[in-house]
């Protein structure tokens, strides 16, 4: 039986949500993506985008009463990466099991999630107030979740005292995915990340440039950094995400065109030009589901 592995961007924004008609094509929810191979559901980050899946899961649960089992990989504990979790409806069902993987210690992770669900800022009483079964595990080496092999590269970042995760996920269907939701953009970090992701066919990378270089995009990968990483990792497809909230659809399209032009020029001038031209660059979009096929070539469905 053919395995269908799908990828859905549920939230493509960093910093804060930006629901707007000007963001219809890309989206306005904060950081979250969902992988589904028909057996396991894996979320990466739990910004407000995760609530789109939560609403849907609640609808299904109401009909079938089938327990929700899923895994959440958290790259960091900034508000935009986890503030959706307390509002993720299945977390309040007794029958739900949620496994959380981080590269930080379980204590650091719990402290982060407790802050998000603090009763000072929410109607909840920290993670202990959630009814579901939650386990928090520190991922230090390769581990399996269903058919997925998951590994993480911990990186240091000036925004945090805890380590931040770059993820790599591979699947027997041929999917090989690198996910960079937050990384410093100094040369050493980028080289380190590129080594870790070397050969990942699909790269999902933060492209967090702001329209006017404000302080919110400091210490983050830009559009150009994402391209550099994709080329250095020999990726075949690059999905740009973690957009600045003020980058609307039009500005993002312009950025994409600029990047595609830069790639064309690189292809025309460099000795490895032909190979570099095979890199497809896309903007992540909350509208589309992406089917990751066995060959790991990516087909979009409307």
């Amino acid at each position, binding site marked *: 039986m053919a395995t269908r592995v799908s990828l859905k961007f549920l939230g493509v924004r960093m*910093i*804060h*949500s*930006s*629901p*707007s*008609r000007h*963001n*219809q094509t890309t*989206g*306005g*929810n904060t950081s979250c993506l969902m992988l589904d191979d028909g057996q396991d559901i894996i979320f990466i980050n739990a910004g*407000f985008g995760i*609530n*789109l899946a939560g*609403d849907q899961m609640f609808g299904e649960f109401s009909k079938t009463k089938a327990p929700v089992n899923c895994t959440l990989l958290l790259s*960091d*504990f*900034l*508000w935009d990466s986890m*503030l*959706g979790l307390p*509002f993720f409806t299945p977390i309040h069902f007794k029958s739900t099991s949620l496994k959380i993987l981080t590269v930080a210690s379980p204590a650091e992770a719990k402290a*982060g999630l407790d*802050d998000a669900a*603090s*009763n*000072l*800022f*929410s*109607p909840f009483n920290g993670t202990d107030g959630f009814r579901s079964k939650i386990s928090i595990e520190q991922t230090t080496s390769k581990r399996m979740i269903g058919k997925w092999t998951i590994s993480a590269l911990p990186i240091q970042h000036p*925004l*945090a*005292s*805890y380590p931040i995760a770059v993820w790599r996920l591979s699947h027997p269907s041929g999917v090989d995915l690198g996910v960079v939701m937050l990384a410093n953009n100094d040369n050493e970090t980028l080289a380190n990340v590129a080594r870790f992701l070397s050969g990942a066919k699909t790269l999902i990378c933060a492209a967090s440039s702001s329209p006017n270089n404000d*302080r*919110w995009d*400091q*210490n983050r990968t830009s559009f150009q950094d994402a391209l550099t990483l994709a080329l250095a990792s020999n990726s075949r497809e690059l999905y740009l995400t973690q957009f600045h*909230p*003020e980058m609307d659809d039009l500005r993002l399209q312009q950025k994409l065109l600029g990047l595609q032009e830069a790639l064309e020029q690189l292809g025309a001038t460099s000795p490895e030009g032909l190979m570099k031209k095979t890199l497809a660059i896309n903007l992540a979009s*909350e*509208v589309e589901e992406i089917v990751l096929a066995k060959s790991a070539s990516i087909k979009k469905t409307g």
Partner: protein
Amino acid sequence: MKRKPPCLLRFHGVRGSRPTHQIELLGFGGNTTCIEIDTGLDFILAIDGGSGLQHISQRLGNHPNHRKIHLLITHTHWDHVLFLPFLKQLHNPDCEIHIHAPDVGTQSFSELFNLLFKHGRLPVPRDRVKSKLVFHRVQPGVDFLIEGKIKVSSIQVNHQHITLGYKFGLPEASIAVITDAATMALGNILGQGMQERAALIGKKSLEAEYNNQLKQFLHGVDNLVFDTHFNAQNLKSDWGHATPEIALELCAKAKIKRLFMFHHAPEDSDRRVAMKQIYARNIALKHGIEVINAREEDEWPLASA
């Protein structure tokens, strides 16, 4: 002679609980609570710092005529404060930001404000705030003046922790804003200190006292913005929210002629929000109450009934 422009009510964020972006609900908007009252004076007056505050933040930018902002906070749940650290003017040394908010338990709002900037949670540290930032403690039931010109009254409403409703006496019209409030029916007592009061005087007496105080507070206001998160079918009263029926009953008792339905549930599509208004208008007809769905980016002139 130039006529003075009317006071305007602007909705920048009308959702409750959490911001959400979905095509099916962008008609009413996906940002969380933020309401601006444009008095025509030389300062910005807004209620709550939900994600809707980004509209004000972007509109003002570095405009030299808008250096002073007064923000009134109803309570500290995420949907009402999550945008505060990102307000551009907060980081501008030429700006002056006044935040009016109640204490939460033993903690002042300024302490909670600092928690929003906690290292590892937010990319910008608290010491990057360069504006002149002034915190004003609001005590429920104690009136205060903004810039010596706008009278503000407040009342504690039935919602988790301490949550305030505000009333503004403007030259043209009065307006009250109650973003989150549940009925006390069925022993549903949520607010800080309210259980203790119930233990003292009994739940039924507290409910009667609360309803009476709310009615008196709102009596005769020209415009009311009120929580209609739920409808009668999906009401979860212990979540701290109301329905159109509850809002309309209050309007009828307090002789309010215009109701803005507010705090739409994040899972409610445009169609569902519109249906709620049709339903509410049918009930409102017999009381002669005008019912309007709050919609992001709408502005309404404030006039007395």
